[in-house]
Structures are given as structure tokens and as C-alpha cells.
């Protein structure tokens, strides 16, 4: 545990000792605001809910999370510091988990900084706080899911661009597999069991449930099993590509 924390602390420190973290947070907040108010018509809806805020998150994170996660391992590879890290008395697991948690905490911080919108909606009306909380949990889990995939793709290459693109593609699959416009189209020619089976891999149904305020154990299990699988794969890739 101590090693995980030491690695996470270093990683977080690195985020904030370069301007990248601040730029990222600003872009994140600007885009969240833009989609909520301009595209989502927050005011015209005349509802005391944050639906127009959360609905964009899986799409927004599709680009922002890989941007934050693409350097996780590729940067270590490129600078050679991976050789230092993995010859220290820490297991690969501690290193993978430490770096992942640092990035997830960082993304969580960016998410927390969207609190003015919560204040706004509480000021304007009487929203269901429970739904907002479970909405945030849903967003945070989507972040973690995407981030674990970015960790996996960044362990393959020392090139951050390759890492970014691969991870966007994989995350896009996780969206489209269960996105109603796609599933509705596919269901006209494919058997329903197949469509549902593939859709079960998607983040969308799980995310939607949480947006409705339904905190189901299965949705948590989904997120953590994707995270677990992706981090496990990161470990396998790092092990096999040590050479």
C-alpha cells in the first residue's frame, strides 16, 4: 500500500509541476460548460436536473480521458524512467495501480471542479440531490473505465499519439456497442441476444442507469471488472515487453 501511495504521490506531483494539468482542467471545464449550456440547452429545458450536463460525459471523456492517460506508460518508456521504476523494490502491480490511481484522482478533481453547475441548479430549482450524486458517481466510473483502457494502450508504445488514438478507438467501441442509435439499427438484422450481449460490454447502459439515480451493484461490478481487466492486461503487456 505504501509503495502504491508513494508512486501515486509522485505521479500527481508531476501533473501539477507542469502546465499540462492546468491546461487540461481549463479545457475540461470549458467543454463541460459549452456542451451543457450551448448544445444541451440547459436553460431552455426548464428542468431542475443536470441531465443536459451528464449526457455528454461519455462523449466528452472519450477524448479527454485518453488525453490525460496517454502518457501514463508511454512517457516512462520514452524517457527510460521505466527502467528505474521497475528496478526499484516495487512490484509491477504497485506501479500500475499507483499510476492509475493518481490519474484517476486527477480526473476526479477536474470533475469536482464542475461544482458551480450543481450550485446553479440548486439555486434555480429543487433538483433531486440523490440523482446528482449518482450521476457524478457514474461519470467518475466512466472516467476510470476509459483511463484503465488508456493505461493499457499506453503500455504498448512509447509514442503518445499512437497511445491516444488506440485508446480513443477502444473507448469508442465501448460507447457504440450499447448506444441506442447503433443498437436500434443493428437489431433490425442481428438476433436480439447478440445485440444485447455486445451491448452489455458498453458503458452506456450502465451510465444511463446511474444517471436515472439507480445505483445498481451490477453497474459498479461492470466498471470495476473493465478496470481490473485493463490494468491486468497492462501488467501482462509490461511484462512481455520488458525486453
Amino acid at each position: 500500500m505504501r509503495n502504491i501511495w508513494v508512486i501515486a504521490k509522485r505521479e500527481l506531483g508531476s501533473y501539477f509541476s507542469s502546465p499540462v494539468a492546468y491546461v487540461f482542467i481549463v479545457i475540461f471545464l470549458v467543454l463541460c460548460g459549452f456542451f451543457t449550456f450551448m448544445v444541451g440547452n440547459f436553460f431552455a429545458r426548464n428542468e431542475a436536473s443536470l441531465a443536459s450536463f451528464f449526457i455528454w460525459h461519455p462523449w466528452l471523456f472519450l477524448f479527454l480521458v485518453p488525453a490525460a492517460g496517454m502518457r501514463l506508460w508511454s512517457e516512462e518508456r520514452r524517457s527510460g524512467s521505466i527502467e528505474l521504476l521497475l528496478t526499484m523494490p516495487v512490484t509491477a502491480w504497485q506501479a500500475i495501480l499507483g499510476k492509475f490511481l493518481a490519474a484517476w484522482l486527477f480526473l476526479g478533481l477536474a470533475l469536482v471542479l464542475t461544482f458551480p453547475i450543481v450550485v446553479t441548479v440548486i439555486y434555480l430549482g429543487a433538483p433531486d440531490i440523490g440523482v446528482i450524486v449518482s450521476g457524478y458517481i457514474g461519470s467518475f466510473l466512466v472516467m476510470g473505465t476509459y483511463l484503465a483502457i488508456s493505461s493499457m494502450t499506453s503500455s504498448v508504445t512509447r509514442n503518445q499519439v499512437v497511445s491516444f488514438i488506440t485508446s480513443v478507438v477502444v473507448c469508442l467501441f465501448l460507447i457504440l456497442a450499447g448506444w441506442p442509435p447503433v443498437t436500434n439499427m443493428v437489431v433490425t438484422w442481428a438476433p436480439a441476444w447478440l445485440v444485447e450481449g455486445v451491448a452489455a460490454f458498453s458503458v452506456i447502459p450502465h451510465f444511463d442507469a446511474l444517471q436515472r439515480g439507480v445505483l445498481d451493484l451490477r453497474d459498479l461490478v461492470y466498471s470495476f471488472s473493465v478496470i481490473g481487466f485493463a490494468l491486468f492486461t497492462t501488467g501482462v503487456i509490461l511484462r512481455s515487453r520488458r525486453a
Partner: protein
Amino acid sequence: MIKAQNVVKWFGPTLAVDNVSFEVKRGEVLGFLGPNGAGKSTTMRIITGFIPPSRGRIEIDGHDIEEDGIAAKRLIGYLPENAPAYPEMSVAAFLMFVAEIRGLSGAAKREAVERVIKSCFLERVRHQPIETLSKGYRHRTCFAQSILHDPPVLVMDEPTDGLDPNQKHEVRQLIKSMGQNKAIIVSTHILEEVDAMCNRVIIIDRGRVVFNGGPDELRGRSDVAGAVTVRIRDRKGDEVRSVLGALPQVARVSVLGDGGALVRLFPKGDGAARGAFAAAVSDGLRGKGWAFDELHTESGELEEVFRAITQSDTVDGARKATGGGEAKSAAAA
């Protein structure tokens, strides 16, 4: 402390390390020599557990690096090639991180960091981000990292690379003094460093150990080892050659320069005869009544030996690589 047994490493179809075995005890500084691409860095990465060997095993004080990696890695300080670090961190923050991950905390951590900042002359740059440092400072920062926890085993890949002559001297002194109670492996391709810090040398060529012994033994393999060089005043080279070549102990004479004739005399036989060779030559010169400015016994040139044993592209070189005794006579022939 360090024990490598029949280590083999394949990278796909390429054989990078071919059946390397050696042992380094406490109090030894082992110089790891070899041409570029000979497998030095790969071997060091295997020793430190960064990459697994394809076959064979590494033991650090009895701990297998693959099976008992954490215990083994605790004992090792490692300076990788090109001295990597986290570029955005400051020197002090980076060393603090390494100290923490090495299990130090509180006062012990601060003390260790202060100690290496001092011994590696990093005082002036302690708050600077590593990416803004010159190569020498960056290198010393990584060097500092490797000795931070005072490990009993040190593995250093080109520790003096990129340093200026003063810094090189400092680092060599530091390694030499640490070598008294640690087991150290140092790779280099600067041969004078072998003299400056190592008490044993391994030469590795195309993944194989082609020499394993003391620096003196290595030098002894040189053609010129044991030969006597003299500078004789007011004589012609040819004249000197014919006169001295007639001495019973002299096998052959080569003229290095004319003017004040500079000649090199090679002894016949070896062993005891060689020991008295300089005396015999000087007696011969006195007998002729020739005045000489200089007379010394060559101890052999490392560079020459290095070239001779690592030219393994030839069949001859490959044969030399395997047999110790034969190699000696082959080099002399």
C-alpha cells in the same frame, strides 16, 4: 554478492547474451568492457531484474532476481544507461521520491538525500527541474539515486559518461572507495578507467565473456608486455638494431624512431627470463659505452589487447574467445 549462472538472452532471433557466468564478491569492483552492442547493457539489465533472462539465473546475495525480485532489488543500486530520471521533477524531489520508494522515511530519508546531494555535488541545482540540467548534472542526479540507500550491490552502466575530466576523476574516486565494502559492476569503454577503479575485468564480445581476470593479467596479454624501450643518444636506428639484436636475451628489435634512436627490444622466452630483461639490456648498453636517456619496461597496452580480443568477426577471434591458454600463445605469436 552477485552471481550470474549461464545467462542467455535472445531478442527474437538475435542472441544478445550467450552463456555468461561470473561472480562478484564484496570488495570487488568489476569492470565490464566490450565494444558497442556487445551485450553489456543487456547483461546489466538482466542483473538488475529489468528484463528476464531467456535461460540461466541471477542471484543477489542468495536471492533469485526473478523469483525473489523484491528482496534482490532492495540490495541493488542501479545507474541505467543514459541516466534516466523524471524530467519535470526537481533534483531534491526526485531523490526524496527514490528514498521513499526505497523504504526510507522521516529523518533517515532527509539524511540520505542530504548525504548524496553533498557527495555528488548537487547542492547548486537541488531545486532545479531535472530537464533544465546539463548532461553532467543529470547524470550525477541519477548516480546519486543509485547510492542513496547505501546498497551492498551497485550496478552502473557507464557511470562517467558525459562528465568533464574533473567530475570523471571524482566519480572514479567515489566508486573506488565504495568498492572496499560493496560489490560493484561498472561498464565502460574507457580503458584507463579500468586501471583507475577496477580490480577485475570482464570483456564481453558478441554476448560472450572473452576475458575474465585482473587488469594486470589483461595487460600481460599485450604483445609489448615485458618488452624494453630505450632511447639511445647519437646513434642510428639500424646500427642499434644490429648490435642489440645480437644480445642473447633479445628476440627481436623494432625501431620506433630515428634521430636519438628509439627502439623496442622483445625478450626471448617468458617468465623468469623476462624479469631480468631490463637489467640485461642495460648491461649490454653499458658494455658498448652508449649513453641512453630513457629505459623502461612496457607493462602492455590495454587498448591493444582490447582490440585483439574483441575482433571476433574473424574465425581466429572466435577461437581466441573460448580458450584461455591458447589465446595467450596466439597473441604472442
